[in-house]
């Protein structure tokens, strides 16, 4: 006797809805990437470190290929589709939603994760205690699962579950470097991160109470009704604030950034790369989803929360840079630069629909630039006996030319020199700002100019110090003189990706706009 899978559908859905129809094997791939990463994370607990590393890399390569195939399918298909996780469609069961923007991010994230781990590989095996190295890759696998699931999720409760996984694994990969300062940094990170999760949880429960749904589309419908009738006006506004603050804490928006320099500055370079390149971005993608798919743009605009995000973004851009100028520690400088770059994303979100594509593009650009900077910083630290201070690092780029080139490309991109990816972001943000109201345009343009100058003020002296001529006799090499091939390969691919994003930017922005339209 066979269970008829269709009986339940027919009960609730008209046969006309095409978004649920699976015609192609490719449409299963997002589900396979989630389950595969989860399973490889679980299996890793039983493996030796080297085998764990191989499984992790294998999983990431497979996920990259599968996500790329899904992306191509979605572009060809021209519409999103919904994949049911279970035997029951959405309000009753779980589902994930696959569109162009989601698959683009999943593809980009899997490549960044792979390259960051490759670049920091030597440091992972040096910084993490030998008996705990397999756990590093376990956490990375599960972190990747949560990132992918957060990108694809179509349900607020599923999002919360994976926010939890993300929080725990992110803290664990900071903690895994064996030192006192990382323990302190982890404690701070965990506290702030849990505060953010708590606020998100409060937001979800109030929203469920006033709307009666957890699925994003259903919430938008009932929120639209509530907004039109003026019912539950205050709880709705509180929910929007709570979500904005919670996700702001998690993605290190300016006044809530205090945990970031410690956590990103002290952990091993692979962790710093993944944390700044991917973990922060997952929450911003969740915020964009909330704006478009949970509250709807009308409700968000009338609540004026975007104005606050806009101002905070501008503050982050300037104050993050000033803090970076003040720091005498290479990794802390790069970490503060992350605060400034996150400010660009929030500036784009604050500009409204016009800036959303630029914000999404900045997510990609920062994901491909910052991990490279952190990995090269790790390589520089090797030449100075593990010190992160600028005074010990003078001339480091001459001792490790590959890292020097990578750092220079990353720095030029962050400053926003034409041909590099960062320039396109600034250009797009400026054009988006011009299409909005006068005050916003003036504020945004002034902030962009000031922030660009400030970026140059700390990146160019840093480059000068790193490329300073020193006597070669004082070279200290930390882990032997053998060439670090994984690092060189990852650095090369990062540089190529940066130029691809910079030169072929119209392709990506077009894809992002297509994806945003599908939202």
């Amino acid at each position, binding site marked *: 006797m*066979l*269970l*008829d*899978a269709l009986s*339940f559908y027919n009960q609730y859905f008209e046969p006309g809805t095409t978004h649920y129809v*699976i015609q192609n094997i490719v449409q299963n791939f997002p*589900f396979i990437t989630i389950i595969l990463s989860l*399973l490889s*994370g*679980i*299996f890793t*607990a*039983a493996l030796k470190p080297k085998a764990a590393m191989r499984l992790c890399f294998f999983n990431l390569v497979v996920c990259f290929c599968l996500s790329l195939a899904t992306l191509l399918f979605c572009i060809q298909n021209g519409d999103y589709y919904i*994949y*049911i*996780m*279970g*035997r*029951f469609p959405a*309000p*009753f*069961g*779980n589902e994930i939603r696959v569109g162009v923007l989601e698959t683009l991010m999943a593809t980009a994230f899997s490549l960044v994760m792979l390259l960051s781990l490759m670049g920091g590989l030597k440091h992972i095996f040096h910084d993490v205690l030998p*008996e705990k190295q397999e*756990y590093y890759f*376990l956490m990375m696998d*599960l972190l990747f*699962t949560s990132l992918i699931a957060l990108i694809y999720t179509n349900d607020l*409760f599923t999002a919360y*579950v994976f926010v*939890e*996984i993300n929080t*725990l694994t992110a803290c*664990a990969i900071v*903690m895994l470097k064996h030192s006192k300062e990382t323990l302190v940094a982890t404690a701070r990170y965990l506290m702030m991160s849990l505060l953010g999760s708590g606020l998100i949880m*409060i937001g979800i429960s109030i929203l*469920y*109470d*006033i*709307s*009666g*749904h957890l699925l994003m589309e259903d919430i938008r419908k*009932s929120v639209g009704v509530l907004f039109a009738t003026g019912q*539950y006006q*205050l*709880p709705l506004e*509180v929910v929007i604030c709570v979500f904005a603050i919670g996700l702001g804490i998690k993605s290190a928006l300016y006044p809530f950034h205090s945990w970031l320099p410690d956590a990103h500055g002290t952990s091993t370079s692979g962790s710093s790369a993944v944390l700044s390149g991917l973990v922060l971005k997952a929450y911003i993608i969740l915020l964009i989803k909330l704006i478009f798919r949970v509250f709807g743009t009308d409700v968000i605009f009338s609540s004026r929360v975007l104005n606050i995000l806009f101002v905070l973004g501008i503050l982050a851009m300037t104050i993050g840079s000033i*803090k970076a*100028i*003040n720091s*005498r520690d290479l990794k802390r400088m790069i970490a503060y630069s992350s605060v400034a770059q996150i400010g660009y994303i929030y500036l784009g979100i604050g500009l409204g629909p016009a800036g959303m594509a630029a914000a999404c593009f900045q997510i990609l650009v920062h994901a491909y630039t910052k991990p490279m900077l952190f990995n090269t910083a790790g390589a520089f630290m090797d030449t100075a006996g593990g010190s992160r201070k*600028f*005074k010990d690092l003078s001339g480091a780029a001459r001792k490790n030319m590959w890292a020097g080139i990578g750092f220079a490309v990353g720095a030029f991109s962050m400053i926003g020199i034409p041909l590099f990816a960062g320039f396109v972001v600034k250009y797009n943000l400026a054009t988006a700002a011009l299409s909005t109201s006068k005050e916003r345009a003036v504020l945004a343009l002034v902030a962009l100019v000031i922030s660009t100058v400030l970026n140059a003020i*700390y990146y*160019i*002296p*840093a480059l*000068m*110090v790193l490329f*300073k001529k020193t006597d070669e006799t004082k070279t200290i090499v930390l882990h032997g003189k053998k060439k670090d091939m994984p690092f060189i390969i990852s650095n090369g691919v990062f540089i190529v990706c940066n130029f691809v994003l910079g030169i072929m930017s119209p392709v990506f922005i077009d894809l992002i706009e297509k994806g945003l339209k599908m939202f």
Partner: protein
Amino acid sequence: MISLIDTLKSFVDGAPVKKEDDTKLTIKKVSKHHETSFTERVTSMIEKGESKTARSAYTVVAVIMAVIIIACLIYTVSFLPHFGGADNPANSSEVVKAYIENGIHDTGATNFVAGMILNYRAFDTLGESSVLFIAATTVIILLFRHKTKEEEKIATVEEEVYEDKHDVILRHGALILVPVTLMFGVYVLFNGHLSPGGGFSGGTILGAALILYNLAFGDKSTQKFFNYNINKVVKISALTFYALSQSYMFFTGANRLPIPDINGVAGSLISSGFILPLNIGVGFEVACTMFGFYSLFDREEI
């Protein structure tokens, strides 16, 4: 031009050190290498306790802000619909109705909660059990360490000295309580789809029984049947079974492939498809996590 570069360099690098022999540079001199920036001066002021008033003002402001935020949130709650009221949107949604009306037919479980978390919304619960797995692993990362032979010797001596092996009351009490608790845990696990209970609650009871046994009879007798490797194997196999069985359900569900009817007769022990084995798997994982936490906090090993 050169002077500009020098100024920029000293900006990043701080003021250059007076040229002395490198060997003579002491740690103190290195730390005075650069000029202190404004923020560094302020932090050092705070660290040295030079601005205690600033610190206490900070505490006061923080407390006031927290109170204001709490008040705002509580005020918001007063605007929410009444719990259990007929006009509560959560009560009038189609989801609740469908769970109650079709729950037994769809899942085969008479315990709707079990049907909901392990069949309808199994993906979320898969995430939740991974959270448990991650939490246990994180505690292992933080606290677990392989002891050296000397440390092990010291530990065994300490155990002999401090662990009172002749505590008759505890041992006899445990002899009666442990089997009963284990039986009750197994009952809760196996009836999760029929009555209140299930993997999470049954697993906690099993974990409590293990902890009681360990307290009464010591590490060595516990390690005969439960050690680090067994803990690992149980957790990995439970989660793997969960992930694989649910992937089968997800894949067939999304592609609308027919599957054999595994729901069985609602109300009988062997029924409701994957819910029973999933409850057992989750229960074992929870028990391992509970005992693992206790054991790691107690003596840094399992």
